[in-house]
């Protein structure tokens, strides 16, 4: 149990919709969500497929604990070959959409082919239809959500959709569900758009059965108490959200600033959690209105914000005067310190547009910052930007760029390529702060060395969520390590990578691991699902998933050459803060990491490793 044991398969080319039983042998090996869907994907799709071709598939997958009473059990992932990266992509989201999929009776939805005309997939329990989406094609996430709920006459319908950005081929377009929760990274929304699939709308009226109800209730109740009693998950995250990190990382000298030219931002306080909670001088209101929880979450770290109605970005635009999804730390960094913009209201507006049009704010913000450096270096001018003075620190430039990129107009078309392609086009590829063509997020590896190895080896390209060693290196969870040292980091990164893959695959939020260990998670999985799930088995499952993803990328042509950081981080030392004088030491860590992984010195899993993991 835990699993519904049913899969929905939708062929957009033929319009054929079929159901099939879940492969339970694979479920025992890959658990669910990220792991299990990637198993299906890698078995069915050639690694060399064109991400935007009809041969690519896209899978929307839940975990066995999605939709249960386990805290944070509302997660789902979108698995495909990434439009931005050409690598395996798995982008995870919260909200309520994932749980609704389980209530409708489905573990995952596999979408194949390409529809001739725009369609959306309607799932109401067992009633599944492809319906015409021509009326909502070309409209925003927010409009699509409202249109479908009105059409279905059911406000409880949960919608995951693309915005205009994906339709226009922005390579880092997101799939947005519940208005402002997003499977944001790697261009999974772009793949969805390439299939002419506008949205998936789900309404489920069933429940989720677990293996042993009594044991499950006991395990989940005990685990919830751990989260509530923990100062981070019980108080810190709900009260301040992820944005509290802005001042922490700035003080630690690891806040990428102005396209990683600097590691500290003089305006960090102005865009921090503290600033969001302080009354504005203009109207006395706070940017932060309240917090919000995803399905089943006892943490509730989400931010709901309101923009100052007198701010230049929203003057005469009442559609942005309501409360909506506010800044998380990664978005505030990408749109803020990384572009040198310290205008909190402008950042919030840019974040609203990212949600409305379906953009990944990390890749968008980092691409704008690369473009700003091109502009300041004189490589591009207002002739290229359509008149925008693209200077670091310009809130006006940032807000104009997000509008153009969301709609795919003017210079926004170039920004939609992502920083790797944009900087290559103008002959300055070294200005792209990416790994495997994906912009890395809000932690400078010169100041947090473990994150350098995290970015370089992430199977989905530059990403913090594959092994969040910040937890140990800065926050001291589960134990403090020195952020400026590379010693012990290969083992730390491997441990975080394997454990995170297991947490994702269960359908839980990785934020639980600020309080939970696998000793807290395993009893919940084991009470919910067949399979004798122990902490050791979860860790082995995570390692299996990591190697499976790595092998897909290997077949797609990625090599050890792709496990590297931008030259700037390797050669230009940090100028200020604790890391002053340091560069990223990833080259020193990689050989030990490969050895710990059981890979060859060239970064390829050995036959022995693959055999040990039954791959």
């Amino acid at each position, binding site marked *: 149990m835990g699993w519904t044991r049913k899969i929905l398969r939708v062929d957009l080319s033929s319009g054929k919709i079929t159901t099939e039983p879940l492969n339970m042998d694979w479920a025992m090996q890959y658990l669910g969500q990220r792991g299990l869907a990637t198993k299906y994907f890698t078995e069915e799709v050639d690694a060399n497929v064109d991400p935007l071709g009809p041969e690519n598939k896209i899978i929307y997958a839940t975990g066995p604990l999605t939709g249960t009473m386990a805290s944070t059990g509302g997660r789902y992932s979108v698995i495909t070959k990434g439009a931005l990266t050409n690598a395996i992509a798995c982008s995870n989201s919260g909200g309520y959409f994932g749980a609704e999929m389980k209530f409708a009776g489905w573990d995952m939805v596999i979408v194949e082919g390409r529809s001739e005309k725009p369609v959306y997939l309607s799932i109401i329990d067992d009633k599944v239809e492809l319906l015409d989406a021509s009326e909502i094609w070309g409209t925003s996430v927010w409009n699509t959500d409202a249109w479908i709920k009105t059409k279905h006459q059911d406000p409880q319908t949960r919608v995951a959709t693309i915005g205009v950005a994906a339709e226009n081929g922005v390579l880092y377009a997101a799939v947005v569900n519940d208005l402002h929760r997003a499977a944001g990274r790697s261009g999974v929304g772009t793949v969805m758009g390439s299939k002419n699939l506008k949205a998936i709308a789900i309404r489920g009226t069933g429940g989720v059965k677990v293996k042993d109800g009594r044991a499950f209730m006991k395990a989940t109740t005990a685990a919830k108490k751990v989260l509530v009693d*923990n*100062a*981070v*998950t019980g*108080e*810190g*995250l709900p*009260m*301040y*959200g*992820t*944005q*509290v*990190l802005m*001042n*922490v990382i700035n*003080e*630690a*000298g690891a806040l990428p600033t102005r396209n990683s030219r600097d590691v500290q931002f003089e305006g960090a*306080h102005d865009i921090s*959690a*503290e600033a969001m909670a302080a009354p504005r001088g203009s109207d006395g209101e706070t940017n932060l209105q309240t917090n919000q929880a995803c399905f089943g979450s006892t943490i509730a770290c989400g931010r709901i914000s309101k923009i100052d109605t007198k701010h230049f970005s929203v003057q005469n635009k009442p559609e942005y005067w309501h409360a909506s999804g506010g800044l*998380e*730390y*990664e978005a505030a960094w990408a749109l803020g310190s990384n572009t040198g913009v310290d205008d909190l209201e402008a950042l919030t507006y840019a974040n609203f547009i990212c949600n409305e049009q379906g953009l990944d704010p990390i890749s968008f913000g980092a691409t704008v910052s690369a473009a700003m450096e091109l502009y300041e270096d004189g490589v591009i001018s207002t002739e290229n930007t359509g008149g925008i003075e693209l200077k670091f620190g310009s809130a006006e430039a940032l807000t104009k760029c997000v509008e153009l990129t969301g709609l795919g107009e003017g210079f926004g078309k170039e920004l939609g390529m992502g920083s790797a392609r944009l900087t290559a086009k103008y002959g300055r590829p070294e200005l792209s702060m990416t790994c495997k063509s994906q912009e890395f997020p809000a932690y400078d590896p010169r100041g947090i060395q473990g994150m350098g190895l995290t970015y370089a080896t992430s199977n989905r390209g530059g990403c*913090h*969520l594959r092994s*969040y060693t*910040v*937890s140990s290196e*800065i*926050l*001291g*969870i589960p134990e*403090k390590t020195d*952020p400026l040292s590379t010693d012990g980091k290969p083992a730390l990164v491997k441990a975080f990578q394997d454990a995170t893959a297991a947490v994702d695959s269960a359908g839980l939020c*990785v*934020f639980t691991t*600020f309080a939970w260990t696998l000793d807290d998670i395993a009893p919940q999985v084991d009470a919910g699902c067949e399979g004798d799930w122990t902490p050791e088995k979860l860790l082995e499952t995570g390692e299996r998933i990591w190697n499976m993803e790595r092998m897909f990328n290997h077949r797609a042509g990625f090599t050890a050459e792709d496990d590297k950081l931008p030259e700037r981080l390797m050669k230009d030392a940090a100028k200020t*803060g*604790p890391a002053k004088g340091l560069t990223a030491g990833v080259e020193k860590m990689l050989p030990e990491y490969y050895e710990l992984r059981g890979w060859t010195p060239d970064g390829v899993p050995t036959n022995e490793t693959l055999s040990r993991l039954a791959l």
Partner: protein
Amino acid sequence: MIEMVGVTLKLYASLGGYLPSEASRNCLETSVRAGTTVEEFIDAFGVPREACHLVLLNGVFQPPSVRSKTVLKEGDAVAVWPPVAGG
């Protein structure tokens, strides 16, 4: 004459309320007697020790065990947070 050193205290998140009214942007520039330790400095503002989860001295982590031994120098900045996280 008592020797003083100029230092900065930054209290974030829920600890911001422990700063006096002259503080700005969660930050107070002040001076302390030479020989004052990190722990004594924070104590002087009434911040409960159990609330001082993350203490950075010039950006570098100060484990609880050394806070009572580390003496502040001219220009030092101490930043303190309750238990927080993000990502």
